[in-house]
């Protein structure tokens, strides 16, 4: 299993704070995971399949799209940060 978290605008629009997914082909790396999520259609497709800038973190560090996932990983998706 991997844990997937959503923050800010994403969390609100997707009405999802977090979920657990099986680790398999469709969640092998972050880019695969994004494809899987966009396949859910509607807002999921708009957010993960479109032009929107979505940042990803792997185990609480900013991650690149091609980073491989392993059992127990925590992946987070969120819009560009606006703190400070």
């Amino acid at each position, binding site marked *: 299993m991997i844990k997937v978290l959503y*923050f800010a605008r994403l969390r609100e629009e997707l009405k999802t704070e977090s979920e657990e997914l099986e680790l398999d082909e469709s969640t092998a790396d972050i880019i695969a995971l994004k494809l899987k999520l966009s396949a859910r259609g509607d807002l999921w497709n708009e957010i993960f399949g479109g032009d929107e800038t979505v940042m990803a973190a792997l185990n*609480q560090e900013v991650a690149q799209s091609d980073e491989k996932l392993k059992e127990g990983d925590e992946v987070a998706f969120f819009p*560009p*940060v*606006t*703190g*400070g």
Partner: protein
Amino acid sequence: MMKEIRVQFETLEPYKEIDALRADNKAIGAVVNFIGLMRDFNEGDTVSRMTLEHYPGMTERALEKIVDEACGRWDLMGVRVIHRVGDLDPLDPIVLVAVASAHRGEAFKACEFIIDYLKTRAPFWKKERMADGERWVDARHTDDEAEARWQS
């Protein structure tokens, strides 16, 4: 090096933090601090309230990394980064970056470096409430430019 990094729902009290940073250390010659405040106006609209969300765990790691990087680049005697989350009203401090050193040049550079990186790398998100609804704040292009200055 005294280092303190904190994310808190409680009101941020900058002066208390600066006093704690100085901690009666008679070797400190310079304290530079940045206080980011909630404005009642943004992108042409009056903003009555703000909610700050963050990614617990990642936030602290990101801030630690930024502060450690600053400590590696400059000779500092103390650094404090305190960031608010939750609901804020206009005039409320959002963030304090306070840096102490023997001489001013290093404190200035480190303070600006830390806030520039925080703005682009620490997972905080602002949501503004206006008279006619609320909206998530968009990332500012100028923040990316501010960060890029340090990469040389």
